[in-house]
């Protein structure tokens, strides 16, 4: 007898389950996506013991009749696509027809469903892949899927589950990924019968974000939007100062589906590059809408990856949307007074209102709230949360400055040019002092700026260099005696392949021997630097393993290196003229709020903050 045999269908399903049912959160994902595809307006999720004991998802969608129920638990049975071509024109969340069969093969699954036209609901049970016939029962229109004892049929997999708290964490994250993309649909999440999230239907994405993550997150976000060539990029993005320690805060949705895409991620990184610290991550919520035929979602069983028809175009659109916003926005850090401030009081007030409304059942909201609400939209619940009220205040505002500055003091928008002209003309003498040979303290009409001289100068030089390169006006000192540097031959190729980029920077390197290169020209700008040491750094950078950086990226990185090395350092005393010159240039430079490494250059301490600290108001 042969050793190779065809596996029984149930085993096939269990193997397939390994792909799309990895842990309780993946079950939640599959079930909630099914619910979305059923046209539900409200989806309720219940979890017991981190999903081991029970995962229940109820929707109020179109429901299924008994025949559908039977087919639903079969592999590759689906209502979502019918023909080949549909695969490339997918409007639904799911389409593979795998999920329920897979889940059914590794748990005790019960599906209760009633279609709108049916008088009665039916329930079907599947245990370890063995299914009953549907039986009638009583239930509202819609579908309830209950998954009990997940992985009881695959003990090995069950062992890999983490603590209930961890699994609930994953489930919550999964919910975020879905709920943020579908603000129009209400969601609840109950863990151990306790309500964890109650996300009411809304038409504003910002409101959904505020609901999920809290108003502190939502109120810093800036709206972005761009549409071109059939690609619409919308989003809510945090200014660089509100960066995060984890990449988790990059939420990218393509046609309503959460994805991780390296092109989009790269564009985001690129837009924030040199505005945030390299060890930090930006917080962005990006909603990309493209024609379904322009993107292939059938790449990965969990559909977390996509393939673009034109990835460079998408990359460019995302980058442009973000860059435009940052160039138009005043990104100066605001000084945060440590003691009680308006924001804090607002939160306390909000929390109290929250407390009372929750415990007052359907009582009318208190007058305070009325005044805060704009009242333009009907409230789904009488007692709206204070966090929402804060959001509502800022939602309709297009001025980004108003968002960055939750305090009532109006932040100065970015009208830099007239200001700069005034300063240069000497009409408004800048009052500034240097402290500790490191910081500049500058008087402003609405407060005080504290500037890190190195960070600011570095940014100014960086921008100057960038401009020079664009204008092809970077001066390069030719060398009488070429500087010969020992460089192993395996690096020669990388030097030669970047010769053009280097030439744009005024650096001319020629391979001069089996293990040496000769420097023939060097930027005048860097005259004071040790050329050999700089070159070694540069070649190391060029030869860094991994993806070859694009010429442009590389150019900027090198500019960065140059600017940093040429800028005044902390501890360098500056004359009043130098201070004035630096400040005048600050007005003219783009993105002067952050040094090219992303550290802030400037803190703003408003008059209001000061007055509060001194109890003047």
């Amino acid at each position, binding site marked *: 007898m042969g050793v190779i045999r065809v596996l029984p269908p149930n085993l096939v399903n269990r193997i397939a389950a390994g792909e799309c049912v990895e842990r309780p959160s993946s079950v939640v994902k599959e079930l909630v996506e099914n619910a979305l595809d059923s046209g539900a307006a409200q989806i309720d999720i219940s979890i017991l013991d981190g999903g081991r004991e029970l995962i229940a998802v109820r929707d109020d969608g179109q429901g299924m009749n008994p025949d559908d129920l039977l087919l639903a638990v079969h592999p590759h049975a689906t209502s979502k696509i019918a023909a080949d071509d549909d695969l490339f024109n997918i409007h639904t969340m799911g389409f593979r027809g795998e999920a329920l069969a897979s889940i059914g093969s590794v748990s005790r699954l019960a599906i209760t469903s009633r279609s709108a036209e049916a008088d009665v609901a039916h329930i079907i049970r599947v245990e370890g892949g063995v299914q009953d016939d549907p039986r009638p029962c009583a239930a509202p229109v819609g579908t309830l899927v209950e998954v009990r004892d997940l992985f009881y049929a695959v003990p090995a997999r069950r062992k890999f589950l983490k603590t209930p708290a961890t699994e609930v964490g994953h489930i919550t994250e999964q919910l975020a990924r879905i709920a943020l993309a579908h603000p129009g649909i209400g969601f609840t999440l109950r863990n151990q019968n306790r309500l964890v999230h109650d996300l009411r239907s809304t038409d504003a994405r910002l409101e959904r974000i505020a609901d999920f993550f809290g108003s502190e997150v939502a109120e810093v976000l800036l709206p972005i939007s761009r549409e071109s060539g059939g690609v619409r990029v919308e989003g809510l993005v945090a200014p660089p100062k509100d960066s995060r320690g984890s990449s988790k805060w990059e939420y990218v949705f393509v046609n309503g589906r959460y994805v991780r895409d390296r092109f989009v991620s790269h564009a985001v990184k690129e837009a924030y590059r040199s505005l945030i610290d390299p060890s930090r991550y930006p917080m962005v919520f990006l909603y990309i809408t493209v024609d379904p035929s322009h993107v292939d979602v059938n790449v990965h069983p969990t559909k977390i990856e996509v393939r673009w028809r034109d990835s460079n175009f998408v990359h460019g659109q995302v980058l442009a949307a973000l860059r435009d916003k940052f160039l138009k926005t005043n990104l100066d850090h605001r000084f945060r007074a440590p003691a009680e401030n308006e924001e804090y009081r607002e939160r306390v007030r909000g929390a109290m209102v929250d407390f009372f409304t929750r415990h007052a059942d359907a009582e009318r909201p208190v007058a305070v709230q009325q005044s805060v609400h704009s009242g333009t939209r009907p409230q789904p619940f009488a007692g709206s949360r204070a966090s929402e009220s804060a959001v509502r205040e800022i939602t309709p505002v297009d001025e980004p400055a108003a968002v960055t500055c939750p305090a009532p003091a109006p932040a100065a928008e970015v009208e830099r040019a007239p200001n700069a002209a005034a300063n240069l003309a000497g009409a408004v003498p800048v009052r500034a002092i240097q402290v500790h040979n490191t910081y500049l303290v500058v008087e402003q009409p609405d407060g005080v700026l504290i500037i890190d001289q190195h960070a600011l100068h570095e940014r100014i030089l960086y921008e100057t260099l960038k401009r020079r390169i664009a204008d092809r006006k970077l001066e390069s*000192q030719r060398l009488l005696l070429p*500087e010969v540097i020992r460089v192993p031959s395996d690096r020669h190729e990388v030097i030669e392949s970047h010769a053009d980029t280097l030439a744009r920077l005024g650096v001319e390197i020629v391979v001069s021997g089996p293990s040496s290169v000769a420097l023939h020209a060097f*930027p005048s700008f860097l005259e004071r630097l040790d050329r050999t040491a700089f070159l070694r750094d540069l070649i190391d950078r060029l030869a860094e393993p991994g993806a070859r950086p694009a010429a442009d990226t590389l150019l900027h990185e090198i500019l960065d290196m140059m600017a940093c090395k040429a800028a005044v350092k902390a501890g360098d005393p500056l004359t009043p003229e130098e201070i004035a010159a630096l400040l005048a240039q600050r007005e003219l430079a783009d993105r002067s709020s952050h040094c090219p490494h992303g550290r802030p250059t400037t803190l703003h301490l408003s008059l209001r903050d000061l007055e509060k600290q001194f109890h003047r108001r």
Partner: protein
Amino acid sequence: MKTVLPRQEFQDALTAMATLTSGRTTKPILSCVKLVASKKRVELSATDGEAALHLGVACISTPKEGQAVIPADGLLSIVRELTDAEVSIETDGRHCTIRGEGSEFRIFVMDAADFPPVPEFDGEADLVVDGIELRRMISMTLYAAARETSRYAINGVLWEKQGKRLYLVATDGRRLARAGGEIRATGSNDFEAIVPARALGVFEKVFTPVRGEDDWHVDVKILPNQVLLRSGDRVLSTVLVEGHFPKYQDVIPKNNDKRASMRRDELLAAVRRAATVTTEESRAIKLAFSTKELVITSQSAEQGDARVQLPIQYEGTTVEIGFNPHFIADCLRAVPFDTVFVELQESFRPGIICGEDKNDFLYVVMPVSLSN
């Protein structure tokens, strides 16, 4: 040890010593000066570990011969503050007592046995050079030497003896200066030695013409790893820079056929004027040579632009070239000529500045180009 010295002469000697002792050092003994008192004279020496200086001062009396190692800064500041004509120095093993009229100071001393040996000028000189001539050659080259680069060999000035001539050559890789002069007397073979720039800086400060002596000369002794320079009772010694000085002859252009001449002071003034609008980041000036006229322009995005013109002797075709103005000004400040010659070929090739005779002085400078 106890000795009485004329205060002013002693102060001058200590000031010369301070050129070596005032540098930052981790070895405290290197910031000290060593005194050796005999009946008629007190010998002073100091070293920074690389260069060493030795001077003698005639004393008024030495009641007790001996030696002492005293912190130079402290001693100098005391001697400078005294107003007396004489100063008395007395030491025991731990202290040095300095007495003027009505004042007395005590400072700690260090153990004389720990003071590093200072080379002495023994035997005949390898060459004898006119003192004024040597000072001229040093001042015409020293500014072009590299400072603290990783290419050690160019952190010094090359001394090159060719028969009856001595050449000094310095470069920082972007410009090169060479000065040549006659040797008065020589008993040695031709040689090449790289003398650290720092030691030559000390020479410029300390080796000035001896008053009342018309025929001032400097004796030079070359050892395998050292050079000693002697004038009267002053001796400066320094270790030589190891390594190979670049083959500078190769970079001196031979085909610079566009030759212009002009007044040195006018060119210097014009370059400095044009350089006023250059900045740290943009420091090039452009020189446009045409018949009878040189136009120097510069511009910077931050400051504005400048245009300066001056009359020159020039008959060749029009040529434009960019230079770092500091490189031009450095050279023009250092040379004594009334008329200088600028020789060019093309805008990306090195230019030459020289006097009547390139054997006396020659300066090669690389242009600045705009990247494209």
